[in-house]
């Protein structure tokens, strides 16, 4: 089995961000004041941007922080503060209808998660070119080419010859080509209990080497730990944390100054018809 540092770090980062996002989502559901809800929602959006970066979408990750965590949430927080009224506390957090309404998401969530966790991961793969290989396709547009083999069952071992005189074993792995060009990779599967699944297959594709320092929409260049070290990724997360801290500071300062303001005139409860 092939293990590298980012083979362990990738899922670890993913589950960390997924956990933060889920906890912040629960916090949003139970938040007493909309300001707290807004901060929880920013937490969800920042963790989602981290997940996007891990899923090879650095452009969307940056867009997520800029548009959602930046613009939309600042707008929401601004409006909440403009409309900050003491009588928000008179609105009950939940009422009897809420408990009925909660049933629908609960049932839907249980059904979705139940279905997904029993689904075979291979369902989501592209069709195989050579019965054994699910990727790459011929027009691979990134420097790191993703190789994946069809699961051959228990005991199988997978050996890839990348076509540039390097060999690695593992069912799913990535390989960065130093030079652009057309390569033929060969996969050899052996040791599978089902003898029909043993054998070898080749796939020919074009790999494009993206120069370092260039950020392509689809490439993992910006957050490629192997090529650049964790520096860019940590910088990106740092910007997110600074943004979150500034929002929290603005909220704390604004609430303090609002509390010291003179009380508003009591408003009539019913709207005029």
């Amino acid at each position: 089995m092939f293990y590298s540092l980012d083979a362990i770090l990738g899922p670890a980062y993913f589950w960390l961000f997924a956990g933060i996002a889920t906890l912040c989502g629960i916090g949003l559901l139970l938040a007493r004041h909309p300001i707290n809800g807004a901060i929880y929602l920013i937490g969800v959006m920042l963790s989602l941007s981290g997940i996007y970066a891990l899923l090879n979408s650095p452009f969307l990750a940056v867009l997520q922080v800029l548009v959602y965590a930046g613009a939309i949430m600042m707008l929401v927080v601004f409006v909440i503060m403009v409309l900050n009224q003491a009588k928000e506390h008179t609105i009950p957090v939940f009422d009897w209808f809420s408990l009925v309404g909660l049933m629908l998401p609960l049932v839907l969530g249980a059904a979705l998660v139940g279905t997904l966790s029993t689904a075979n991961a291979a369902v989501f793969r592209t069709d195989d070119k050579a019965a054994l290989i699910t990727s790459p396709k011929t027009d691979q547009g990134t420097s790191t080419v993703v190789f994946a083999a069809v699961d051959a069952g228990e005991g199988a071992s997978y050996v890839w010859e990348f076509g540039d005189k390097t060999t690695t074993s593992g069912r799913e792995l990535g390989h960065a080509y130093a030079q652009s060009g057309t390569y033929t990779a060969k996969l050899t599967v052996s040791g599978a209990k089902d003898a029909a699944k043993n054998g070898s297959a080749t796939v020919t594709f074009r790999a494009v080497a993206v120069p370092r320092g260039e950020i392509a929409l689809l490439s993992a260049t910006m957050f490629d730990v192997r090529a650049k070290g964790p520096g860019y990724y940590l910088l990106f997360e740092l910007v997110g944390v600074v943004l979150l801290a500034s929002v929290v500071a603005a909220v704390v300062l604004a609430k303090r100054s609002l509390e010291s303001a003179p009380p508003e005139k009591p408003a009539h409860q019913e709207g005029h018809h």
Partner: protein
Amino acid sequence: MINHIALVDVQIVAAILFCLGLAVALTRRNVFLLLMGIELMLNAVNLSFIGFSRGFAGAESLFGQMTPIFIIAIAASAACVGLAMVICIVRGRESLDSDAFADMKE
């Protein structure tokens, strides 16, 4: 390598977030939290798209990443319009309870 995150796990996280957003939008009575629940649902859909887009190689992956760009733009404009409406209605009603917005006769 990034590729060791299972595609199904991404979809499970997206499903959980979508249901949390739906729960917020259905059960909370404060208008702001209602809008935030809708934003959370849109974000979960984005995550689902990006999770699927990673299962495809090369240019096909681009299609899964284009839809979230549209969704982000639409969500931004929806938030602007929604918050503007909330401000307009709250000026007249002096309440943030969504039940107070039930009749739109005026």
